[in-house]
């Protein structure tokens, strides 16, 4: 019996050592693609979660992939296969870019895209009075004609610097949205100068705040302000 077990184990050992000798000899994804979305009005194009993406499709393949933009307008993917790709930025609150660019991706490829935002948020200020935060800002449109309707505007408040759609505290953010539903060309100068209030912030906490203006474009996407830090003093 012991002999038998020994033989079986020997057999198993031989089979195990001889199996699985095929090695995947294809190179791993070692190309990378990075860059910045630049606003045609100057500076980076600020984005948020679940909105702007770099769409890319390897030439000769049918399935596209996407690289989500970071909140500061940069993007990076270091796990791509080398080769020619068609690339285009999509999904954000900027005038649609239909022409894809062909780039040859290798290690460290960098490419910047310039986009024209629908709305630019200017003169963004925040004033804290007790636990009530008042946000004021002006909006402007680089190209007013033919722009999608402006749906609403709202603050985004979070406890980390990652703040935007899908990364905000609902009672401070979505709950303080203001409906607009107007075309930019129909707005008076007073309409374009906006004020939002965020009441009942918690004393002794630090918040990160920005504002967004949402449009009824293909993606119901928003243009964002820069992010500011607000320290609510202890009472």
């Amino acid at each position, binding site marked *: 019996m012991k002999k038998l077990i020994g033989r079986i184990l020997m057999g198993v050992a031989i089979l195990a050592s001889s199996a699985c000798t095929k090695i995947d000899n294809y190179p791993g994804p070692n190309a990378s693609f990075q860059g910045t979305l630049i606003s045609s009005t100057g500076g980076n194009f600020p984005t948020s979660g679940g909105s702007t993406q770099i769409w890319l499709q390897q030439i000769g393949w*049918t*399935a*596209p992939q996407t690289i989500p933009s970071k909140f500061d307008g940069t993007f990076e993917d270091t796990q791509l296969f080398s080769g020619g790709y068609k690339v285009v930025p*999509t*999904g954000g609150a900027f005038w*649609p870019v239909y022409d894809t660019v062909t780039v040859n991706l290798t290690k460290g490829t960098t490419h910047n895209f310039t986009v024209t935002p629908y709305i630019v948020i200017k003169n963004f200020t925040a004033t804290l009075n007790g636990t009530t935060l008042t946000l004021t800002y002006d909006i402007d449109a680089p190209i007013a004609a033919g722009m999608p309707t402006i749906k609403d505007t709202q603050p985004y408040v979070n406890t980390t610097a990652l703040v935007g759609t899908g990364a905000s505290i609902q009672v401070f953010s*979505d709950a303080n949205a203001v409906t607009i539903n107007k075309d930019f060309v129909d707005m008076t100068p007073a309409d374009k100068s906006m004020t939002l209030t965020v009441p009942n912030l918690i004393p002794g906490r630090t918040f990160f705040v920005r504002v967004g203006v949402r449009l009824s474009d*293909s*993606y*119901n996407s928003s243009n964002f302000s820069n992010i500011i830090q607000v320290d609510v003093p202890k009472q």
Partner: protein
Amino acid sequence: MKIIKKLIIAICLVTGALITSCQKLDVAPKNIFTSDVIFNSQAGIQSFLATIYQDLPIEDFKYVPSSNDGAESPAGFEHGGNDWMSFYNEAACTGEEVGPWSGMDIGTGFGFWPYGDIRNVNIMIAELPKHVADLTQTGVDQLLGEAHFLRAYYYFGLAKRYGGVPIITVAQDPGAPLATLQVHRDKEQAVWDFIGAELDLGYKMMPATSDAGRANKYVAAALKSRAMLYAACVAKYGSVNFVDGEARASGAVGIPASAATGYFQAAYDAAKLLDGVYSLYNATPGDKVQNYVDLFLKPNSPENIFIKQYSIANNTAHSWDDTMSPRYFTANALSRSYPTLDLVNLWGTLPITNADGTPTRYDNRAQLMQQLEPRLQATIYFPGATLRGLTFDMQRGIYPSFSGTAAAEVAKPSNSRSYILASSTSTLYQGVQVIGFTGPWTGDDELTRTGLYVRKYVDYTRLQATVNLNTSVQPWIDLRYAEILLNRAEAAVELGNTSDALADINLIRDRAGAALYSSIDLTKVRNERCMELAFENQYYWDLKRWRTADVVLDKAHFKGLMPYYVFDENKYIFLAEPELFNREYTFPKQNYYEPLPGGEIAKNPNLLPNNPGY
């Protein structure tokens, strides 16, 4: 010996010459059905048709619109023995109900691609004319009509998801060159026109009556009214609210607005063909609640146009009874999707608040429900309703005493409200149970999150001990006359024929026990549709074809009806509060069309460009 040897050789030669081989190897194989076996008899054809009918894209009790969020995988049109999770339904993603979906998670579909089934229909259409001798010319024509109807049904399932798809009318030869097999997409408009033409053939060729579960000419007309209304709305509303992209520029998605009127007219004309053939179920007009409940359960209803049947013996039974009501009323399992107060408010705001803003006091839970429209009572189980001898005792908690307005109370943070809540039915407050056996409860989603339960289609006649998984056999009514009247009314109002629309809607409202309208408009017609067809897997597609999904489901949160017991008054009040999970639902605009399945694009790159936004 020599003689024997010679003899043996001679015998061998003779037998060798006589018994020649390889003459009759060309025998019909016994384990493969040839086309003669299938198409020479009605019985053979019936068995062939059974598969085609079984796979029809009917969004029934078992339909799972996506495999997201833990729903059945692969998702889609199920016909197995254990497709029990009926709460993963479209209604629970659109605000008719709230359910196990964590948001609007069905928008990209499940990769529906029924070209295998379409191939079966194409084979049938090619084969049938060769069998006139056995089936007679009339028999062949009737079956051809049925085949055209079935093919239209499959293409309708494709067109409403993807827009333009390749129209394949002849079974492809697998040996043909790749270039001819990789067919380009047709334009969306061409696909809808094809569907309309196929259904016209179905109407022309099929007989006026059929076995339950099979099509006849009126089923084709009914489906045509549904399909043409969809196409008309794509033309009218899709040309205003759309996502731009290459597929739109090429016409693979989108229809010119100018085509809308033609499609509305086609929908109206098709619906009108059913005039006098079917009628609304009205067997017990004296009890309009019971009548509306029975409409979904009684066989031989004159309202049923096309049904899908289920059987325990054939292992196809569904689980609606066991998964729409909580365990309290059944023998097993659980419920997970619940009607919203937002749906109920289509009938008009519930009388739960007085003019001064204070909550209306009720002596018992059932008092609220008793004032409501019979159809509403028959669609949703409200607090105080009964089933199988037990009461829906929904109670969110107890107020030792209540003062002030409902709005002020609901606006308070939960920790400064004076109510008593509990996480178990065994918790008592001064001897009174705090929460109901049927919820609402925040611990999990197996009790209602909204204070309401689905009633439509629930078979109240079954004994509790028999209500188990995979034991429900009430048929799914895929096409019923009320929908045709609604299709007709909507098309009529879009065409400016309001008097026809008013008459159609009042027929439905009369049966429902609602006050009749004296005038009509598009909003009234659409609302009537949402009320009459609630939970029937129509609303999601209505939102899509009206192109209002991205407006209705824009960071949407839905409400529930929370019943409380006010201890010092011995009364019940109802507060409109966010459903207990307070989930958010947002419909991305590109989901008006689903993405073409990636696997199919890999096989056929000619399907590109994909729909806009993907």
